[in-house]
């Protein structure tokens, strides 16, 4: 369990965001949800989240754009992509662009949690989280 | 029967024991037909409980496996489920593994005899076999159970794929491509897996338990090709093990023959069982059986420890441990085989009933 890690969750479906948020928060993560790609990009500019989880198909700004934005600013931030429309090409592209992992919908919240936990473990291995994300 | 033989590592076989060994073979055969590989995990400790020294039990078992694999791989070979290139490479490494195993066993055997003599002569190698057995098989069965629990919700009913994903990321050179199995595997991975498979096959006679999952989950081979290739491999490994053990004079041909008597009948029933039972149940039954076997072996360990003088126990307690171990082993095998036979029988009856109703239903529509 890694409390205090900040997760940015981008998904345009409020119900998905809500369910995943509950699951992650129960595991001790601090979750921020964005429902549009544009707002997510703005948040990434402002704030250094520890982990980013994004759907691939959101709106005109898609998950790949968000991945690119995250990698451009903070290449070490693990970014996890989720999508209901996974294909070999998209998955390989995401991994080639440096995504941490790739999850095909439908999945259970705990499947995501497992991946997020792994990402958190990786951050800790690299010497803990830096920046302003200290828990209260 | 001359005394010098009985004083060595061959035991006297009376009618009861002969029936018991054949029964072991039958249950082992049923299980191996059902599970797809192994059966040795039941027969080796079973024979040890009957008073056969561990090394002889293993040697006889591996000889038994040789003939069985020969029959099986011929069938698979005709269907093109054998990747010979993969088999040959794993074979060479596995041969090294077996050699190592035989050597370790032999040296433990002689060390035991020189050291303590009498009871302690076989106790050391028995202990060693039991420990490896418990370690490896509890790992296999527990991870199987964990998978089942994880995949209860008919999600991807497969073990976690960390190993394959991990290896795929690195692709250690040189990579070798296998046309029949349609995979590319790093030579180093092959070496490690082959060595481990051979070593375990030589020690506890259960190479298949490591080989098949390794091929499916580490190399990414399809299940059918994995089973076929494994049988092909098992044939050579069995032959190699047989020659090695026979050269050491450890194979008791009477036990081999008795094992066949039961196992070749059981294997047909077990194989029939897999056609009529759900995958999840197959794996559940399998892992429970293995776990019980492990438990049974675990109970026998204090006896060997006492004989080696590691722990202090009354020699009369041996009987309790041995019979507890025996009961548990037989219980696991019998229950497993009973469950399988129950499914086979039920499916057989059901088949007839369903056909009757279908035929009746189809007629008016036609």
């Amino acid at each position, binding site marked *: 369990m890694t409390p205090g890690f900040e997760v940015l969750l981008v998904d345009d479906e409020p119900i998905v965001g809500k369910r995943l948020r509950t699951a992650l928060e129960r595991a001790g993560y601090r979750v921020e949800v964005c429902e549009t790609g544009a707002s997510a990009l703005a948040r990434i500019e402002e704030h250094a989240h520890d982990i980013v989880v994004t759907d691939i198909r959101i709106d005109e700004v898609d998950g790949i754009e968000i991945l690119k934005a995250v990698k451009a600013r903070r290449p070490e931030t693990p970014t996890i992509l989720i999508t209901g*429309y*996974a294909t070999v090409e998209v998955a390989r592209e995401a991994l080639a662009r440096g995504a941490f992992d790739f999850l095909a919908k439908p999945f259970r919240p705990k499947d995501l949690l497992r991946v997020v936990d792994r990402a958190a473990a990786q951050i800790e291995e690299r010497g803990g989280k830096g920046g302003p994300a200290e828990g209260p | 029967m001359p005394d010098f033989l009985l004083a060595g590592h061959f035991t006297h076989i009376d009618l009861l024991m002969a029936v018991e060994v054949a029964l072991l073979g039958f249950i082992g055969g049923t299980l191996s037909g059902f599970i797809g590989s192994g059966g040795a995990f039941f027969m080796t400790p079973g024979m040890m409980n009957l008073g056969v020294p561990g090394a002889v039990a293993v040697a006889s078992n591996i000889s*038994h496996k040789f003939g069985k694999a020969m029959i099986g791989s011929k069938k698979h070979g005709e269907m093109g489920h054998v990747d010979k290139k993969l088999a040959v490479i794993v074979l060479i490494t596995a041969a090294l593994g077996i050699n190592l195993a035989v050597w370790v066993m032999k040296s433990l055997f002689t060390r035991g005899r020189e050291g303590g003599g009498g009871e302690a002569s076989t106790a050391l190698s028995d202990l060693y076999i039991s420990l490896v057995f418990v370690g490896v098989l509890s790992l296999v069965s527990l991870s199987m159970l964990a998978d089942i629990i994880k995949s209860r919700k008919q999600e991807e009913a497969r073990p976690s794929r960390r190993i394959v994903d991990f290896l795929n990321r690195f692709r250690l050179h040189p990579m070798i491509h296998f046309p029949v199995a349609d995979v590319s595997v790093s030579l180093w991975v092959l070496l490690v897996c082959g060595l481990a498979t051979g070593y375990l096959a030589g020690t506890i006679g259960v190479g298949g338990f490591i080989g098949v999952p390794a091929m499916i989950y580490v190399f990414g081979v399809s299940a059918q090709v994995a089973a076929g290739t494994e049988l092909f491999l098992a044939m050579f490994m069995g032959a190699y093990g*047989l020659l090695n053990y026979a050269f050491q004079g450890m194979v008791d041909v009477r036990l081999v*023959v008795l094992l066949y008597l039961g196992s*070749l009948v059981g294997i047909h029933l077990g194989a029939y069982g897999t056609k009529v039972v759900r995958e999840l149940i197959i794996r559940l039954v399998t892992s429970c059986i293995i776990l019980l076997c492990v438990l049974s072996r675990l109970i026998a360990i204090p006896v060997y420890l006492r004989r080696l003088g590691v722990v202090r126990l009354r020699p009369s307690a041996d009987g309790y441990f041995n019979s507890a171990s025996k009961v548990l082993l037989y219980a696991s095998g019998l229950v497993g085989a009973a469950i399988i036979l129950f499914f086979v029988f039920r499916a057989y009856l059901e088949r007839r009933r369903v056909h009757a109703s279908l035929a009746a239903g189809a007629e008016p*529509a036609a």
Partner: protein
Amino acid sequence: MQIICVSRGTYEGGKELAEALAKRLGIPCLAREEATDAATRAGIHVGKLEMAVVRRHPLSEYLAVEREKFQAFITATLCERAREEGLVYHGRTGHLVLPGVSPVFRIRVIADTEARIAQTMDRLGLSREKARLFNEQVDEDIRRWVRVLYNVDGESPDLYDVVVNLSHVSVENAASALVAMAQLPEFQVTPASRRALEDLHLAARCRLAIGGDRRTRGMQVRVRADRGRVSVTWLPRDRKAAPAVPSILEEIEGVREVVCTMATTNLLWIEEDVDPDSETLPQILEIAEKWNAAVEILRLEDGEGEAEAAPAGASGEPGIPDTEAEGGILDDGVEVERLPEDAGVRETMGRLVSAGRAGGYRAVRGGAREILQSLDRTSSYSLVVVGRVFSSKGVSTAKRLSRELAGSLADALRVPVIGSDELRSQYLFGPGHWLKLALHGALAALLLFLVFTYQAPILEFLARGGTRHRILAAAALFLFVPLFAHLYGSFARYLFRLMKIE
């Protein structure tokens, strides 16, 4: 009406070429991405399948069902879109969901490795090395995908009619050439292939209906349609859900009759002249009963394969697209129409149905190649029985041809292929087997007796020291063990065959 399938990799040109072709021919164009998105929206977990391929996972039972549903969805989509004006589909290997529809024009688009790397670098902004790795991985994934879904090698050129290298030919020029090629008589939909399409479409719709119903959605089934006659083969483990199938399928438009068969596997019976009174039928039924298998009849018609029927539009053969009044085509249609009238087939099917063993029927003209093309490669056969075929060719030629046919089927399907005359000796219990049973049993018993009677000398022999003697002992064991295993193993096998458990 024209159906064109463009198989493309990661190279962008494939899509452009397909679109250019569709534009020139004036028919709709469908991209794989559209189809898979629609499948996902329809509740099929395509993404899970794709990821199983990426992660090199073997398919679980759940994914095997999703695979069936996905294939049915793609088949249904292609048939539906193509029905009116035809279709250009571009994706991986679309034509494989239309087995047996020979006029499908199959184009494979490739490009030079360098050009592809350059394009990937440009598109994804990757380094050269990463782009190369990306291409390799995607190629490998797609190859694996095709293997997992259709059990063929998608990169093999013999799956395609033409391979175009877009590094050498521009998209526009390639499109012009291919438009001309598409006009060839071989690529025109005949009434026969139109019917094959309708059958595939109906079967696919039925499969989707089964997958979409709450009661039956987890079932692994194989659906075949032959002119409104739908046969469904299901596995014994689904016995609880199976009774719901007929009521689901009766709702579907175009279904005239539903035959359900439970099977764990399939038997393919290839015969030229299906005769219910021959010796073969009861034998095959007996095996099917024992193995719990469904029997699929394939009537191999004499003559050239349909795909080769008109070399360069020769005389009278189907040379003109899709007009039923034309002589050659009408001929083709009439001949196919005659089939269900064939009393032998009708009677044989009737008996299979009443035995609960019917696994569908189809007719194919030509030889091994045509048979393989028409087979659904994802379904599992465990035995192929080749009856009397090529009878018009003379006795010795027929023998050779059927032997060759058996050989190539065995290579491609990787299951035993035997002649109907060998059925009894190989898989059933005849008088000769009693003898073998007795012989093997007696020999095994003799060996057993000897081992136990002379156990002391034998053990002494096995344990005596001395290197030369040890080698001798090992060799003796090496020979004895397989001998006994073989003798007793054969005895046990015959015994179980006698008891009909196999």
